[in-house]
């Protein structure tokens, strides 16, 4: 029995309990708070260690070797921490909603925790799928749009994610077949890794498999051009679902690339055609989606598209493959998760109170809701990469990491991509400040005003904002968890 098993099981059990009639809010909040404490305990325990910790394995099949195996290293703990934080915030901010909101939040969070904390490829995959179902249902059933429209949006997302998952499954199966060694098929990540170290594949083949995995994982992370599900889905999704999916669950694809694809296929991302394809795609994320975001005229659109856009930076870190950039990518995953969850949470409140998110109808909210404004500013400035908030640390590590191998006068394609990506930072400032200006600055629009949430309802947002500030000023807190090379 490992603490990680409790961490995974707790939200799922709480979800079951709530569905079967337990008091929704109390049970969910209790479970998530305990969960956060457990995750923090694990984080503290892990300290400056390296390698997997808290491992525990229960075989469920012998051949192909499948086991329910948990274990965590720094990367997974950081993401588990992210999940616990966002889940708590997402559940806390729910107000006057049916129990299904709590259940789905718990399921998404529990699924994400399972995906991050298990070390068997099968369960990593399975938990992610588990978390997708409530996402889909909640968008289709409680989305913020007309029934027909929200169903269409939910379907779009589901078809994309489902197709992506299947491509991913094909890639994983391929990996398992290649790296299982002679006698037995195994899904155990560590065993696969060891085999990959012993007998690495030829580069060309690594490139092929990596590309397949990139497509699979990529469509889960809204990698351009497989992104068009994301923006409408987030704009439509009920607040806790938007927070959890964009903040946490989406990171699964990136986590998978870092955790599965890169160690098994170390040369995969460096095969020329794969790298070029990846660069084009991530630039699509950053530049095309940056412009699309600038064009958005509603806050939820802006946030949703920006969330797609920022994935490009994380892919940039993954494409680089240097340790600095990879760790930067992990930091940025954490940072983006917290900041986008904060923004979506606040956006949801605004929609509830104001009924509209159109920029040209809003204005001057800062006057009556100063605390709200400050909280929003944390999220907005974090997402444009302001130093002192976590996103900056991640972004700058990714940028720097791409320049560790440098020849004056001969920039590599990746380095050119970084320079273009930096322009994306300017674009994100453009749309975020436009949003901030139209919503909070100026004189209050007539008839549309809101007041600060009650203190207890501020807690989840304060929690997220404080996380951004603390880990932004001290990114080494997170980096300490990743002492070992990725």
């Amino acid at each position: 029995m490992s603490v990680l098993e409790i961490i995974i099981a707790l939200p799922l059990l709480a979800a079951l309990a709530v569905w079967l009639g337990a008091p929704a809010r109390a049970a969910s909040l209790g479970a998530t708070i305990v969960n956060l404490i457990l995750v923090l305990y694990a984080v503290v325990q892990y300290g400056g260690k390296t390698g997997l910790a808290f491992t525990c394995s229960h075989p469920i099949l012998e051949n192909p070797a499948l086991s329910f195996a948990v274990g965590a290293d720094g990367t997974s703990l950081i993401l588990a921490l992210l999940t616990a934080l966002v889940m708590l915030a997402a559940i806390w901010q729910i107000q006057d909603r049916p129990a299904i909101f709590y259940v789905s939040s718990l399921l998404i969070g529990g699924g994400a925790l399972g995906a991050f904390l298990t070390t068997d490829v099968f369960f990593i995959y399975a938990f992610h799928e588990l978390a997708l179902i409530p996402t889909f249902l909640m968008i289709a059933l409680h989305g913020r749009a007309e029934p027909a429209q929200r169903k269409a949006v939910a379907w779009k997302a589901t078809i994309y994610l489902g197709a992506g998952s299947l491509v991913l499954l094909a890639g994983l199966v391929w990996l398992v077949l290649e790296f299982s060694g002679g006698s037995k098929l195994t899904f155990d990540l560590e065993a696969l890794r060891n085999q990959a170290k012993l007998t690495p594949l030829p580069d060309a083949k690594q490139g092929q498999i990596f590309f397949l995995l990139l497509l699979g994982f990529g469509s889960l992370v809204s990698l351009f051009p497989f992104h068009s599900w994301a923006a409408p889905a987030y704009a439509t999704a009920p607040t806790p679902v938007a927070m959890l999916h964009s903040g946490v669950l989406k990171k699964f694809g990136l986590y998978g690339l870092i955790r599965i694809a890169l160690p098994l296929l170390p040369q995969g991302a460096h095969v020329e055609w794969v790298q070029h394809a990846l660069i084009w795609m991530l630039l699509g994320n950053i530049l095309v989606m940056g412009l699309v975001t600038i064009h958005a005229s509603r806050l939820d659109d802006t946030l949703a598209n920006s969330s797609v856009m920022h994935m490009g930076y994380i892919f940039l870190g993954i494409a680089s493959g240097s340790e600095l950039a990879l760790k930067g990518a992990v930091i940025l995953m954490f940072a983006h998760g917290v900041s986008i969850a904060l923004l979506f949470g606040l956006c949801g409140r605004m929609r509830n109170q104001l009924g509209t998110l159109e920029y040209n109808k809003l204005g001057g909210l800062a006057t009556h809701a100063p605390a709200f404004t400050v909280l929003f500013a944390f999220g907005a400035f974090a997402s444009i990469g302001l130093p002192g908030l976590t996103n900056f640390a991640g972004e700058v590590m990714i940028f720097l990491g791409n320049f560790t191998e440098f020849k004056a006068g001969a920039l590599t394609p990746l380095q050119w991509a970084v320079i273009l990506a930096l322009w994306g930072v300017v674009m994100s400032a453009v749309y975020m400040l436009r949003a901030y200006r139209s919503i909070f600055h100026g004189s209050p629009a007539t008839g549309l005003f809101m007041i600060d949430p009650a203190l207890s309802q501020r807690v989840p947002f304060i929690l997220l904002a404080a996380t951004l500030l603390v880990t932004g000023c001290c990114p080494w807190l997170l980096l300490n968890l990743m002492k070992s090379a990725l």
Partner: protein
Amino acid sequence: MSVFTIEAGLAILGLALLLVEAFKPDISRRTLGLTAIAGTVLALVLFILAPHDTASLPGFIQPWHQLDGLAIFYKGFALVITILVLWLTLECAPYLTRFTLDGKLAEMFSLPLIVCAGMMWMASARDLVTVFVALELVTISFYVLVAFARKSAFSLEAGVKYLILGALSTGVLVYGIAWIYGATGTMSFDGIAKALANPATSKTAALFGSAVLLCGLGFKVAAAPFHMWVPDVYQGAPTPVTAFLSVGSKAAGFVVLTRALDAFMSAGSIIGSEIQALLLVIGALTALLGSLPAMFQTSVKRLLAYSSISHAGYLLLALACRESARFDLSSGGVVAFYLATYLPMTVLGFLGLGIMRANGLGEDLKDFTGLAKRNPLLALLMTLSFASLAGLPLTAGFLGKLFVFLGLADHGCWGALTCAVIAAATGFYYYFKTVLAMYTTEGTDVPALSLSTATKAVAGALALAIVILGVYPKPLQGVLKADKAAVVAK
């Protein structure tokens, strides 16, 4: 008590019930049903206790029957599905009686017992004659069962279609058997395998015979292009019969197919590669032709029929991939595993349909609207069933598909794998369309729907089976693993 005796006993019990109903018409259907169930359960218990080796069979039957791992598994499978179908019939009895002559249901309780005996025999068949007889015993009983609700135009139409097409397939099957016999000079599977390993055997005749035979069997398991009857018959037949067809009849078809293919594709067989290619083509086609039309179905029952076709496609693909050294399960084992996972999810799905029917609801998608409000538990269980049918991880359905895909990838059958993946992706769409409907809340106030304790228990057990098979398949795999050893030994 030998297994054969149990099977004979079941058939006799079936006949006895038929006679009782005929001579004592006022006997309540509940008594009849419960007797049938009790008999089957007893048979199951006895079966578990009985010795499990060929030597324990009566001497006269030994040349034609065998009791290997596969046979034991499918016999148990047949008993379980029969119990569930009988119980489902009881559950659906109130509305079924509206469509039968004189409101009688006796055959609905007795024929399944005979079908069960037939399926059990089929599982241990050693030669094509036994296969044919057992198969026809099952098929002819099904003609009756499908058309049983004869006051319903649908049931009658389904019966007619099943009858004509089934008889056609029987003709094809026998013709195929004739040619196999002609090519190999024997009817027994072992003999066929031996003859096919002999290069002197006429390849063309063997290919012709096996192709025609596979067409005949393809009909039974709903392989494309012999699957057209499935949606119509499944939709028209009474729900318990549909469940029986979908699980039992299909399993019976697959056990025969497994045996036949073991012979056709045994090591050194002169026709092995052609048969494999044929299976890949048919399997991929079946998976696609099952999934694609299902997207537009508005009748959930018909949708399940299409889903059943699609599953048959995966199973055929599994059969195409013979043993891999890296895999604990033989292809027959994978099929058995798949069917074992398929049983609870399909029966649960049809159980849900039956319950809804019994509560005066239809089988259309619109009838599912708001089910979660009517009865959250039922909605949850149905969700589980559909999720498993779609192949969602952590449910039983995923592992079966995973094994199939692993096998295909291991054999490098990328084209077939792609088709299967597309079919599975499409599957996600139509299953979750139904799930979505269940949780949709808008619309009119819907009356609550209550479940009896027994129903809850059975449905809960099925759901539990789905989850357990999904997360802890080790025991089941252990049972089936023995089979591979046997096959390899051969």
